């Protein structure tokens, strides 16, 4: 029963909240979408924390997405031992990078009076959830020695079953507690995401790459105003 709630209902609830609230907030003005950068109040420690954390977590997330989209290819790639070694070492490196970065960020938030002044309860909450998430992820790799191959072969089928709306909880029922924690915590993060500063990664400014350098906006239609006189 609890498996049903945690692995078949919770994911949909979380995704539902995330999508509806994010979209509602985005189209309702999108004021809340901000990185809420605190670099202005503390610059040096942020460098190590933020850089390690972001490069680490983004690569790890990319790995998760690739494994989800191309499980067969990932398994085929890992069939040669040196390639598996490369894959596993880089995954663990990025995971550790994210973990260390996050710990530094949490320490910075806790120890600097100025940063504490701009820390909300939600910030603390989401940082803790992220810490659990990354620690459990690295923990799975270290304790169970489970990595990309296992993810692609054992977990992706469950995740895919969620996506085709036929959740197969049998696929996760026998998983070790650490894996279950990783999953449930991920859903929690997803559900709470739109209420936290994490929304900043939904608005990656990639359009910067192709937009023109300068932006000029007219409040009125320039041709029309001529006729108004």
């Amino acid at each position, binding site marked *: 029963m609890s498996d049903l709630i945690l692995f078949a209902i919770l994911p949909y609830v979380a995704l539902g909240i995330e999508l509806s609230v994010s979209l509602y907030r985005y189209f*309702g*003005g999108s004021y809340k979408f*901000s990185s809420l950068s605190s670099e202005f109040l503390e610059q040096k420690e942020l460098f190590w924390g933020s850089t390690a954390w972001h490069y680490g977590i983004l690569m790890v997330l990319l790995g998760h997405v690739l494994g989800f989209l191309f499980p067969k290819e990932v398994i085929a790639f890992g069939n040669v031992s040196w390639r598996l070694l490369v894959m596993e070492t880089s995954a663990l490196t990025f995971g550790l990078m994210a973990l260390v970065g996050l710990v530094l960020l949490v320490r910075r938030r806790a120890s600097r009076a100025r940063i504490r002044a*701009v820390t909300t309860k939600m910030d603390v909450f989401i940082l803790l959830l992220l810490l659990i998430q990354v620690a459990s992820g690295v923990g799975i790799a270290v304790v169970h020695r489970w990595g990309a191959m296992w993810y692609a072969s054992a977990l992706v089928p469950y995740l895919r079953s969620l996506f085709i709306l036929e959740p197969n909880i049998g696929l996760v029922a026998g998983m070790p507690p650490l894996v279950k924690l990783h999953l449930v915590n991920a859903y929690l993060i997803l559900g709470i995401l739109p209420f936290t500063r994490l929304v*900043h990664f939904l608005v990656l*400014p990639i359009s910067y*790459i192709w937009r023109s350098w*300068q932006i000029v906006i007219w409040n009125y*239609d320039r041709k029309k105003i*001529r006729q108004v006189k």
Partner: protein
Amino acid sequence: MNVRSQISILFHLDKCIGCHTCSIACKNHWTDRKGAEYMWWNNVETKPGTGYPHRWENQEDYKGGWTKDGSKVSLKGSGKFRGLKNIFHNPNLPVIDDYYEPFTYKYEDLFTAPECDDQPIAKAVSLITGKEMEIKAGPNWDDDLGGSPLYARKDPNLERLTQQEQDDLFQVERLVMMYLPRICNHCLNPSCLASCPSGAIYKRGEDGVVLVNQEKCRGWRMCVSGCPYKKVFYNWNTGKSEKCLLCYPRIESGQIPACMHSCVGRIRYLGVLLYDADQIEKVAHADEDKLVEAHREMILDPFDAKVIAAARANGVHDSVIESAQHSPVYKFVKEWKMALPLHPEYRTLPMLFYVPPLLPILGKMEQDLYDTSDEAYFTTIEKSRLPIKYLASLFSAGNEGTIREVLKKMMAVRIHRRKETVGDINAVEKALTEVGLTPKIADDIYRLTALAPLEERFVIPPAHREEAIEMTKMVLVEQGDTGFGFTEQPSRM
């Protein structure tokens, strides 16, 4: 020709008395809020001095503005690749201590302190943390050369001077200073805008005001370091960038921007300039010694029939063209060539112009004596205590000729007026012809400098907001709503 109109500003530094009334007017209007306490969208700094934020002119650290890069100009610090790469941590960002930590005092302690032998004191508390703090800097900490060894001596502009010239500047009998009031320049090639990854900053087509859309700003804070004048500020409370908005809500209703209206020295002027937007790239790329000239050239003559036709074709309202014809800024900048942009070498094409100060009237001392003869008093600009090189570093990318030309004009006007009012100076004609002025023009300059009433100093074009709004909104429905401001509570999550 792509004619656009820009509401431009002129500061006549010869008249600035450094009273900071402008800064206070601005503060009361816009930045008296949590997260914005430290911001001075308008500030007045003493030069030589390090300014606000500390050494803002040092682009080696802050990397603001543009540099010439082959056949183009490119952003010095940010840019599409570097900006995104550094988005997790911006190495060039000025931080709170480069401005100052905002503070208040525990005034209540003065009243509640128990009776004792000593006077009670009000301790300083940080407006960020709420904790007691030791004040290390504050607004205008180096006002009037206060703490010179720490501040005035570290002015980046002094790098152009020889050691001897620098030492001269700081001898007590020779001390010299000037005031430099600064607001956002509402540039034609704004580097804050170009470095914003979200595209939240934009320039308004009708009047050229550069604004940050608070709903689109995501706090990537590239604009703060990208602006070479450090006139975009990061609100540490809301997590958004903010900047001078040229009091557009006032301008749109025909009122004068607060800093300008309140200016005690009456140094401020405002009016429309028409310019050719097709030339922006070319001018931004001009050689350093041609920058000022090229910038002046792209400003168009509002009386020229061709310009008027092109402006109309481009949607510039007739009333705006007419306003441009009465613009005091046009006269100073283009007709009389007396006003210069601040640090044109940053290549953002600032649209706030300065008439440099002709100061002090008494030149350098020689053998411990000032030469107070009429001739010396009114003719020499070379002997002015503030080296021309220094002014050149501020207003002409190091081009001393440009400064000399302007100062000589100002001097010629003085000589001319001295002749008219006192009559004891004779070299008038020479002084005027040397700089290409006629007595009539000299009188015009004198009039606009010293006598012009409010309506001549501020020529504000109608904004036509009524008409603009009617095109996009049901005005009768929205009647009674607040016109602008936050549509959502400016709070964190």
